[in-house]
């Protein structure tokens, strides 16, 4: 495995670079879109269940199926990376819209009431009170979405663009385990590092969740 890595480092690195781009761009798009969508699902209570159902349906669709049907919907080439980005963005949106909605709903209603009673208007209250309190739930969702995306990108190798997935198909075609192992290890490492980064961000951004409960 190390030999393979040594002699093919440029291929591996290119694959890794592509993988990172294909996993994180949709993550960003999906999260950014999920914020307003999730908020609407809470602001207008009747939207919550339809939102849940729609997300559930999108999330059930097998990734390969989505990768190959999108060209017909979008008019892109079948072998275009845009399919992967759009598909993963949809998955991320489906997951995160629900997470954002649930996160906002998890905020103790007496706190939002107290905020209103102090004179907060809706928007400021959302930004200064509700979203920060929903962060732990939302960030937990981002972790799941990030790791899932990293795993799903490699499926794209079956339509020619798969980041580290290219190592899998190459190894499989040549009946050679080394590239596959390298790909798997790198993929898992990437996921682990990403997970750690998000957890660190979470700890930095939500200091109150860690304050030791010393009853003074």
């Amino acid at each position: 495995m190390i030999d393979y890595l040594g002699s093919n480092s440029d291929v591996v690195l290119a694959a890794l670079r592509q993988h990172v781009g294909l996993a994180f761009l949709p993550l960003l798009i999906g999260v950014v879109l999920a914020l307003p969508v999730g908020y609407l699902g809470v602001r207008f209570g009747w939207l919550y269940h339809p939102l849940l159902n729609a997300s559930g349906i999108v999330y059930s669709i097998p990734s390969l199926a989505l990768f190959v049907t999108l060209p017909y919907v979008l008019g892109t080439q079948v072998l275009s990376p845009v399919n992967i980005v759009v598909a993963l963005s949809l998955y991320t949106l489906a997951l995160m819209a629900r997470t954002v909605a649930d996160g906002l709903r998890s905020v103790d209603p007496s706190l939002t009431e107290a905020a209103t009673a102090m004179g907060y208007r809706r928007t400021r209250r959302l930004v200064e009170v509700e979203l920060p309190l929903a962060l732990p739930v939302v960030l937990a969702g981002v972790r799941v979405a990030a790791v899932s995306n990293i795993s799903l990108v490699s499926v794209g190798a079956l339509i020619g663009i798969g980041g580290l997935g290219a190592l899998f198909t190459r190894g499989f075609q040549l009946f050679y385990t080394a590239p596959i192992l390298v790909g798997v290890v790198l993929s898992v490492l990437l996921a682990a590092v990403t997970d750690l980064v998000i957890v660190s961000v979470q700890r930095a951004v939500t200091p109150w969740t860690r304050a030791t409960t010393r009853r003074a």
Partner: protein
Amino acid sequence: MGDDTPYLLDGSHWSGPQGIPHLVLAHLGYTGLALLCGLVIALPVGLYIGHTGRGSFLAINAGNAGRSLPTLGLLMLMVTLMGLGFLPVLIALTVLVVPPILTTTYAGLRNVDRSAVDAAVGMGMRPWQVLWRVEVPMALPVMLGGLRSAALQVVATATVAASVGLSGLGRLLIDGLSVNDYGRVVAGAVVVAVLAIVLDLLLGLVQRYAVSPGISGRGLRRRGAPVAASGPDPELA
């Protein structure tokens, strides 16, 4: 795009070993088998860890670790190591299905109201009985939720597994791609998507109806005023 008749409307595609019904059945078969293997391994372990609380580190992190495994990579690795065939695929599918079942079984049991468990033990129930009569029924919603997402994962992975020789609906996608028969590819994609959605809805129904109404609140009229913990209620005083 070749053919004038859409793939799904061409009668010949609905019969024979390459016909859609056969492929659907094969696909469902693989899914069921992988779930069964996953349950056989993960359920006892999850129940033990959830009930006793020992080894929780494993259960909590299994979910995350499992999610980070690249499905295609795992499939191709197993086949490259063991050769073509169903067994390597089954092993890969099982490896992918065990973590979510393990994690959700554990999480479901851990979130069971401790006072109910306490009461059960206090009444003289043995650990075995406490587990089956109290903890599992209360943890069922979460556990079934885990089963549901595991099932979807298997359906998706089985689709991908066509690339390492497995039958099932993935065949339409993979074979179609290799001969540029996009009609076939889309047909396969549509059928497998519908299958996944239907399966998800069915399991959703199971999730709803298998759980006691006392826990899900299904069909019961809400009675009584909200408890203080839920915040001030303008309707009271």
